[in-house]
């Protein structure tokens, strides 16, 4: 299949620090891929560059045939890339439903005059938007009773789900999930993994994850890319990456790879220990 996102020679420098160093990257349409690496490897910086929050120092991103670096965040979203955040960034004082409605912003057309006069077209659009918001809340498994609660009053797991619903509301072709299972118990992690797979299977949305939970990564990714100190050190099928000596070294330090099989196993089954 054709790649939906291509990154060519991406570099990002903050002053003297090179956060991401000449990363080439391809994402197949309809795949689930993961971006892993130790803390500070440049994963979230990479996400922020895709979504327009940072501008790459050099290199380019091509999304669905269109160059997207240099676009502002809302333009990237309009182009079809949705995202969630590592440390949940919901609109805390707005209800769950309103959060999802905000997500639909670029797909709605009501302007100033429309908002003031509220003709039939606007009323219909608004009603459709509310229906879609409710559907999305159902889809990610947030109960109807909860949908009028302020986002900040939702339980932690529901907040994570709400962020995904909000990102889905932007009608993305590509969904970037930044540590979606962080802080979840095994049961919640399991449910969320299923949800991610369903989103890909039912909605044909390409998914790129940043994830520390190796069980999740190994379980659902079709391709894993490993960053360390801003550089891509390994890429391939999950089991290939898990046994890559450079990867084990990045996670566990020099010498760990020499211990052989036991070292490999631990890197595959536990988060960055």
């Amino acid at each position, binding site marked *: 299949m054709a790649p939906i996102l291509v990154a060519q020679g991406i570099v990002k420098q903050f002053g003297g620090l090179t956060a991401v160093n000449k990363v080439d990257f391809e994402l197949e349409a309809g795949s689930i891929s993961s971006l892993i690496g130790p803390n500070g490897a440049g994963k979230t910086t990479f996400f922020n560059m895709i979504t327009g929050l940072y501008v790459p120092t050099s290199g380019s991103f091509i999304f669905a045939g269109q160059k997207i670096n240099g676009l502002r965040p809302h333009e990237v979203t309009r182009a079809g890339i949705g995202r969630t955040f590592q440390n949940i960034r919901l609109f805390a004082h*707005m209800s769950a439903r309103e959060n999802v409605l905000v*997500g639909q912003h670029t797909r709605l057309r009501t302007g100033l005059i429309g908002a003031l006069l509220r003709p039939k077209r606007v009323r219909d659009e608004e009603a459709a938007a509310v229906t879609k918001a409710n559907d999305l809340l159902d889809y990610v498994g947030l109960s109807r009773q909860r949908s009028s609660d302020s986002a900040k009053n939702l339980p932690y797991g529901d907040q994570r789900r709400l962020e995904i619903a909000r990102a889905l509301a932007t009608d993305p072709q590509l969904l970037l999930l930044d540590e979606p299972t962080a802080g979840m118990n095994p049961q919640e992690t399991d449910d969320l993994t299923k949800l991610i797979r369903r989103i890909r299977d039912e909605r044909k949305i390409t998914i790129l994850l940043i994830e520390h939970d190796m069980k999740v990564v190994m379980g659902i990714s079709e391709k894993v890319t490993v960053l360390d100190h801003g550089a891509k050190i390994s890429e391939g099928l999950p089991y290939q990456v898990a046994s890559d000596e450079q990867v084990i070294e990045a996670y566990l330090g020099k010498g760990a790879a020499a211990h052989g099989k036991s070292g490999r196993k631990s890197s595959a089954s536990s988060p960055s220990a």
Partner: protein
Amino acid sequence: MNKTTRAWLTGGIFGGLIALISGGLVGFLAGIIAGMVTGLLVAKHVVQRTPMEGFRRGAQNGLIAGMFVLVGQLLRGLLINPIIDPHHAGLHAVYTAALGGLVLSGLVAGLFGAVNTLPAPRNRAWSVGLIVLLVLAYPWLDQLLELRFMNEIIPVIVFVLMALGLNIVVGYAGLLDLGYAAFFAIGAYTTGLLASPHLGVNMSIWIAIWISAAVAAIFGLILGAPTLPLRGDYLAIVTLGFGEIVPIAVNNLDKLNINILGYNVVKDFDLTGGSKGLNPIGRPWLPFIGEFRADSPIPWYYLILIIMAFSIFFIMRLRDSRIGRAWMAMREDELAASSMGIDIVRTKLMAFSMGATFSGFAGAFYGSYISAIFPSSFAFDVSVMLLCMVILGGMGNITGVIVGGLIIQLADRLFLPQLSQLVQKLFEKSDIAVLKELNFASDFRVLLFGLTLVIMMNIRPEGLLPSADVRAELHSGDDDDAVVATGVKQTV
């Protein structure tokens, strides 16, 4: 404290203070206010089943609140009046007003209590209807009771209208604006230039008011532009600067010189009248009513009410639209909002210009009403006053901002001056030499105003009628804030 107790206590304190400070026939009005506040609060917190029960419950509490009015009225009439005016007569009037206040308080509270027993959407509509009725009937009441408050109340409403506009910027979009009076000035001066003989334009006020709002909106964009990359304190400082620039510029534009390539294109052109200001500014004209006159405030009153009603209607529509949601999302988390597809630049500029529009309307009306405008009417303290109105009432809540605005403005324009005059007179009659020297009336008004703010903000930091979530925020611990991180910590 029990909710019912709080209801009659709040209503009673308001009514009692008004009666004590103003005395005379104001007692009737104090009774109505006490009854309204009590009735609304009781109806809000206590569920009644039948209209009769509702009326009884409301009236009971209204009567308790009315007792405060009665006591205030009697204290004023029997104790204070003899001191400040020994020759006064008319104990009869004191008793009438005291009893009248008591009865009206019970009656009005009962009405609000009864209306509340209607099924869910209608009870609210009827409560609003009753308030609207009282507001519409006010000029009649004013005449009947010989209050002569109309000339004070019209600017009060103008300021409340501006507070509603400021609420868009501060309450919805979360942009702290310390220079909002600038748009008031721009609206007033645009009308001043277009509808006065100063430039020889003499346009009808009905057209000038729209142009003023549009010009204010454009200036909203102009102010908005340099603030785009800023937030919080820095934004406030830039708006503060703009708020200072406008009155000073207006003050100095009486000798405008423009040189282009050495040619003096405009020489000593008097654009704004400098510190002398502009006057006379044209007044509205309507069939049957004719031209509005300075000595008959009633048409002005209804005109500003109509402007107010339309403004509230449109602000509510904006709030509940895609645009309002974008403002609130931006207020909550700018970065997340932009990642959800909201164009931050557009949304911010829209907030500034919509906020400015309502101020432009207010300025145009005010200019025409006062008929003369001066740069000093738009100084920094106006901006601060407006911000206080928004914060005291409850940021982001239209009803709250109206209530907060009314309280601050009525206190500032009516009751605090009366209070300070009262204290002044008491001082003059007292035997203590130091007190006689004090000029309380002119010196202490601002002090009293500040004191009111300090007390109010300590009792209710979230404002009088906060939107529900702000209250939760201020009265819960910090524990749930830890869950939703809102800081800009987007590092790897």
